[in-house]
């Protein structure tokens, strides 16, 4: 393993660390919104619920290139929101932050799906009982819904992270493929496969991608098991 890491070129190494940074930021930043949307879809009836559900799932069914292009139209320097955001110093286009945004959007449906399912599985009778004891809706969420759906919420976050690590189409369309700034692991692998003599580097990065993905799955499995044991009161 250490041989593998020492064999990495500077560009490859930068692609790996950038990918980790982009994925962590994308996951953490979309977590609160994902949780809120999952709770809305699982627990509330409101007009436009189906529309919201559809919107959340859109990145899952659209070609990633289309999602990336739409992001470019909306958040590019001259985009609908991009221009206004640039005024206050928030720039997405051709920055690593843009890569994080693309990854967050692409991972969002997976995150919301897992969280929604686990929130729906929480017995509403328990939430009602908590409310009769004086817990406000926010307190019920924080003390009952959240801890009881924690395994699914962790699973959703890990799925989103894994998706972010592998996101390629939307990212490269939105923020291109700039080494050190927007060249994530998949972009780097793609670039290496396009140049003569890049096979070895592509192979190294591929092995790393597999290892990171496996690691994420194992960690999420372990966290979920621990959370489930606590939830079921067997700890």
């Amino acid at each position, binding site marked *: 393993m250490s041989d593998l890491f020492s064999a990495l070129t500077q560009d490859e190494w930068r692609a790996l660390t950038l990918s980790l940074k982009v994925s962590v930021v994308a996951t953490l930043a979309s977590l609160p919104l994902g949780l809120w949307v999952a709770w809305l879809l699982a627990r509330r009836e409101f007009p436009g619920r189906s529309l919201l559900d559809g919107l959340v799932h859109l990145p899952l069914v659209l070609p990633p290139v289309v999602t990336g292009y739409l992001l470019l139209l909306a958040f590019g320097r001259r985009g609908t929101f991009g221009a206004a955001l640039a005024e206050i110093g928030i720039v997405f286009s051709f920055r690593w932050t843009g890569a994080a945004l693309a990854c967050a959007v692409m991972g969002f449906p997976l995150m919301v799906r897992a969280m929604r399912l686990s929130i729906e599985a929480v017995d509403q*009778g328990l939430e009602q009982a908590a409310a009769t004891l*004086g817990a406000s809706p926010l307190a019920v969420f924080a003390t009952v819904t959240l801890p*009881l759906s924690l395994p699914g919420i962790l699973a959703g976050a890990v799925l989103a992270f894994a998706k972010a690590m592998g996101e390629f189409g939307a990212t490269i369309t939105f923020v291109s493929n700039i080494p050190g700034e927007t060249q994530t692991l998949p972009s780097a692998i793609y670039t290496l496969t396009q140049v003569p003599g890049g096979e070895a580097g592509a192979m190294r990065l591929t092995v790393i991608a597999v290892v990171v993905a496996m690691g994420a799955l194992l960690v999420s499995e372990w966290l979920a098991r621990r959370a489930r044991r606590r939830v079921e009161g067997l700890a």
Partner: protein
Amino acid sequence: MSLSVDVALTRGAFSLDVAFEAGAGLTALFGRSGSGKSTLINLIAGLARPDRGRIAIDGRTLVDTAARVRVPVHRRRIACVFQDARLLPHLSVKGNLGYGRLFSRLAGGDGRDGIEPEAIVAMLGIGHLLDRMPAGLSGGEKQRVAIGRALLSRPRLLLMDEPLAALDEARKAEILPHIERLRDEAGVPIVYVSHAVAEVARLASTVVVLEAGRVAATGPAEAILRRPDLFPEREAEAGSILDMRVEGHDEAAGLTRLSGPAGRLSVPRLPYEPGRTLRVRVPARDVLVATRVPEGLSARNVLPGRLAALTGAGPALTAEIDCGGAILTARLTTASASDLGLAIGAPVYAVVKSVAFDPAAIGAGRRSVEI
């Protein structure tokens, strides 16, 4: 405290339209499944909204559709004990008890009024369970913890939705005394949903009988429970409740003498001190009616009174006998009623064949005794 309810709600084919008042003590909502008991509980707790109507506690409106007022569940301070306990599985027993207390404190409770947590834990006998998780508790233990958790939220009203329905007889017997102590000691008014006559007879001060979403009858427990028309399929269980006091014991004969407004009864020796009051239930089918003092009869307990009413139709009638202000009911056939020439107001004698004691006093299951 007074709870006033006047609500209507329609859900598909089911419609609920009820109005009643409940005072201090324990009010039983009695009715078959599907009569709307649980819906009513949900409306009072705020877990469901009425189509129309008003619910208020002590004049404070909880919901009023006309005035567009609706206090959210968590601000009503009405605690619920559900049939399935609903303990939070990720918290220990101590955590569950603390959960109820936490929010009443956050809401600005000074922690003074209401019972001390230690007293509640002791009253419910759950001190040894504090560190356990709910998953490892028996059904009866879970219900006791749920009751404690509800009390610790210092509710204005305690709703109990068939808290014993999921338990076997032994577990029921384990919990009933705790509910009685709650009624008598905690000072929190209780609305108790049940479809079991025995539970209602034992616990209720006031009874509201629901039938298909309507109030069929409401009033003091003694008055409601002796009406066989409300309990047609439970005729055997209809009967009267007498409040008696232990007068003394006749050790040689192995008897205990009881006395009350209705008169005196001798029953097999009871393990109580003289002076103690008991609730005695006399099943209507175990009371005979005589127009003269009976002679040559094995039954020793004959209470003199007047025939207050003769109700019912068909082969079986119910005679209500006024014994010193207490009403005793007796079942008899139309034929024997006409043979005896029974007339309202005429002096009669009630021959009591058996009584059942309120197990509140006995401390273990209902006991029926031939006397």
